């Protein structure tokens, strides 16, 4: 055993390796991404990037059924993509320990939403979950989850939040315990075939009902396990108002207690189901409790239910109205709530902060997306078309100054949404803008659907050969998977095989890109434009770039200071100094796309 400083994601990967995990699969998503990469670095662990979270979960589950410990890794909205599978694997149960990492992002700091996956995984799928309060606990819980998963034959989920995944702390690690199990697959159709089959032995009941009963009966076993779990505890001190800290909520509560300066009655909860006995021990004699949890009032409502069942009169406050119902907790928020609750006051209305100029996300200098966004904007500026957007670095094209894509929902939505707009009768061209990783994630089926249904749209695929947004993870269109070289699947070839008309352009060449998009727009059916250029930030480090670098500067004699390059293009290297445009040489990566933007020809 030794004490090591590690990030939450390192601690989770380390714990999984120590627990003898054999197969790890995931799809990149902040804040969970690093776990898969790190797992792949341990000898004897097979790790892969799947095309999406559902497939990652399926791969990991199949490994578990083959008697090998496995782990699926995803972020919260990725778990939505895997929800269909989740709602079946909960009924079948598993064989070797199977852990699901579903990382949440309260506040939506790096996400499209701030969803709480405890609802999906526990309230909905009735699976057990751990909610770590520290990096050390994330480590301990991951190890425990493998053991308990195997013991209960259920998937165990770990729900770390951003402040755990991306926080560093001291961790007492243990020894590697390789499992050395034979990869045997035992056919057991009664469990692993989820279908409306009549079960003779149970008096002709249908299997879905039988498996549902199996899962319901498991809850008793789980509740008793959680009663003895080392991850829940009481910190008793006299008082009529108690405080419940769940996961990171406990960390903020303890921090608030330090600042408050006096001990508080605290119940620390990090498991679902709840340890009901412990909860009752804590609340008996109290008049009021405040529950701190990320993000929805999951535990709060369970405690209210428990009070009702046990005829306990208690004021239960938390995320259902007393505390802010949206956004991330903090030590300060918790401190404010603690002091208000102790004084029998409502939670005070937050002060409106003063806006300090934000640093919005944008494309890097030298990014191929900027040329593509600019070209597409030029096209729709003339033909009045609409662009539906998707997830990826190019989504910053919705912000100032591009303001191009009109919608962004979830992975792969751009294509069916473009198709829907057209089928609703919209008489101008419609474009779906999607990245390559997202195309393989959930764009393929949408494209097939649009083609099959006689769509009339132009799909633009930004093919930069990496999942850049999350830190350059490979995907099926990349030349590798983790450290393995692979033959890339070319998105254009896939689209052509489906029957789309496929066009190609290099987005660093704005004129060519505009021309190709216009050509595609004029064609019939579903058209696919492959805007192919390597991600500068990723591949530039290896010296592989898709343009010829050049020195770009503003000719001050020609520049009339109109500011078009700044207002419409938004490259971080360009600014207006006085009444002249200026390209900061230390920021500029010499892609030269801005040359096409200046109508005066002042950028050379």
């Amino acid at each position: 055993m030794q004490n090591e400083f590690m990030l939450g994601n390192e601690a989770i990967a380390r714990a999984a390796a120590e627990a003898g995990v054999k197969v790890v699969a995931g799809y990149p998503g902040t804040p969970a991404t690093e776990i898969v990469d790190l797992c792949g670095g341990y000898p004897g662990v097979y790790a892969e990037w799947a095309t999406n979270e559902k497939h990652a979960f399926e791969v990991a589950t199949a490994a578990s059924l083959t008697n090998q410990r496995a782990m699926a890794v995803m972020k919260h909205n990725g778990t939505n993509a895997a929800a269909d599978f989740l709602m079946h694997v909960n009924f079948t149960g598993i064989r070797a320990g199977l852990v699901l990492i579903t990382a949440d992002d309260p506040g939506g700091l790096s996400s499209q939403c701030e969803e709480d996956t405890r609802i999906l995984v526990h309230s909905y799928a009735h699976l057990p979950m751990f909610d770590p309060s520290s990096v050390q606990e994330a480590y301990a819980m991951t190890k425990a989850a493998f053991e308990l998963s195997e013991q209960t034959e259920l998937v165990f989920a770990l729900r770390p939040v951003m402040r755990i995944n991306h926080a560093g702390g001291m961790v007492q690690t243990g020894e590697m315990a390789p499992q050395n199990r034979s990869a045997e697959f035992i056919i057991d159709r009664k469990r692993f075939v989820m279908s409306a089959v009549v079960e003779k032995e149970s008096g002709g009941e249908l299997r879905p009902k039988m498996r549902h009963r199996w899962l319901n009966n498991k809850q008793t076993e789980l509740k008793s396990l959680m009663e003895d779990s080392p991850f829940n505890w009481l910190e008793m001190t006299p008082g009529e108002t108690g405080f419940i800290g769940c996961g990171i909520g406990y960390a903020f509560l303890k921090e608030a207690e330090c600042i408050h300066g006096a001990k508080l009655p605290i119940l620390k909860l990090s498991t679902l189901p709840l340890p009901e006995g412990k909860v009752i021990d804590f609340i008996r004699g109290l008049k009021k409790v405040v529950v701190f949890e990320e993000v929805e009032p999951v535990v709060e409502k369970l405690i209210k239910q428990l009070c009702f069942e046990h005829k306990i009169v208690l004021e239960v406050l938390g995320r259902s109205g007393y505390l802010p119902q949206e956004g991330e907790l903090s030590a300060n928020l918790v401190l404010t709530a603690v002091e208000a609750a102790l004084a029998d006051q409502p939670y005070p209305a937050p002060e409106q902060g003063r806006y300090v100029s934000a640093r919005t996300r944008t494309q890097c200098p030298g990014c191929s997306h900027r040329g593509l966004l600019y070209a597409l904007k030029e096209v729709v500026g003339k033909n009045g078309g609409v662009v539906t957007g998707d997830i990826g670095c190019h989504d910053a094209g919705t912000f100032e100054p591009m303001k191009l894509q009109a919608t962004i929902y979830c992975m792969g939505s751009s294509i069916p949404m473009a198709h829907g707009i057209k089928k609703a009768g919209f008489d101008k061209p419609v474009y779906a803008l999607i990245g390559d990783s997202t195309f393989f994630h959930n764009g393929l089926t949408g494209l097939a659907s649009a083609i099959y249904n006689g769509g009339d749209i132009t799909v633009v695929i930004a093919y930069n050969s990496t999942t850049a947004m999350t830190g350059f993870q490979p995907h099926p269109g990349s030349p590798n998977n983790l450290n393995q070289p692979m033959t890339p699947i070319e998105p254009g070839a896939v689209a052509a095989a489906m029957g789309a008309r496929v066009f190609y352009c290099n987005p660093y060449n704005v004129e060519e890109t505009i021309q190709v998009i216009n050509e595609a727009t004029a064609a019939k059916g579903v058209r696919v434009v492959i805007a192919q250029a390597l991600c500068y930030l990723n591949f530039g480090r290896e010296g592989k770039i898709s343009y010829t670098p050049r020195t770009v500067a503003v000719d001050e004699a020609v520049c009339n200071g109109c500011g078009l390059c700044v207002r419409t293009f938004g490259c971080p290297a360009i600014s207006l100094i006085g009444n002249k445009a200026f390209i900061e040489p230390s920021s500029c990566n010499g892609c030269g796309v801005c040359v096409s933007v200046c109508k005066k020809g002042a950028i050379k």
Partner: protein
Amino acid sequence: MKFDLVIAGVGGQGNILASQVVAKCAMDAGYNVVNTETKGAAQRGGSVLSHVRFGDGEIFSPLVPVGQADVLLGFEPLEALRYINLLNRDGKFIINTAAVPTILANMKVDEYPSTEQIMATIKTKGLSGYFVNATKVAKELGNVLLTNVVMLGAFTAVSDILPPDVIVTKLLTMVDAKFHQDDSRAFEFGRNLIRGDVKS
């Protein structure tokens, strides 16, 4: 003992390296250490805030609470302004006065306040510290990327929580040997900025 450091800056300024140097030194000194970063898309010019917390006892929140930081290093003035409320009343700030305008300010969508305005706003908060032009010092040393090292040196001149020689030695173990001479000089220049030996 408990010590909270926050470093506010912009992606690419070497904020995270500086925070890691302090975290590792604190660990070597036997403290319990917790850290994290709050960042948007850092590599793409976003705002980056590093939190380093260490002490003898247990540390719970990875984020430094409002009003708790003992030192705030502002690698960029607007970012320092954004997070100045983290500093405690008795804490010290060191703010690099070299502005990195936001894209929105470049586009005239937002206003980027003048450095004088930022300094004035911070002064009204009754906090004490130093405004230095670390970027200028780094440029004079031949490389703007030395700004973080200048700031790290300055940090050791306002706080004796960790010995300066320990910090600079740790830094050198974390960077390529070809930068050692420049880094050592930048560190010393940063210390001198606070001690008033170099005008900025």
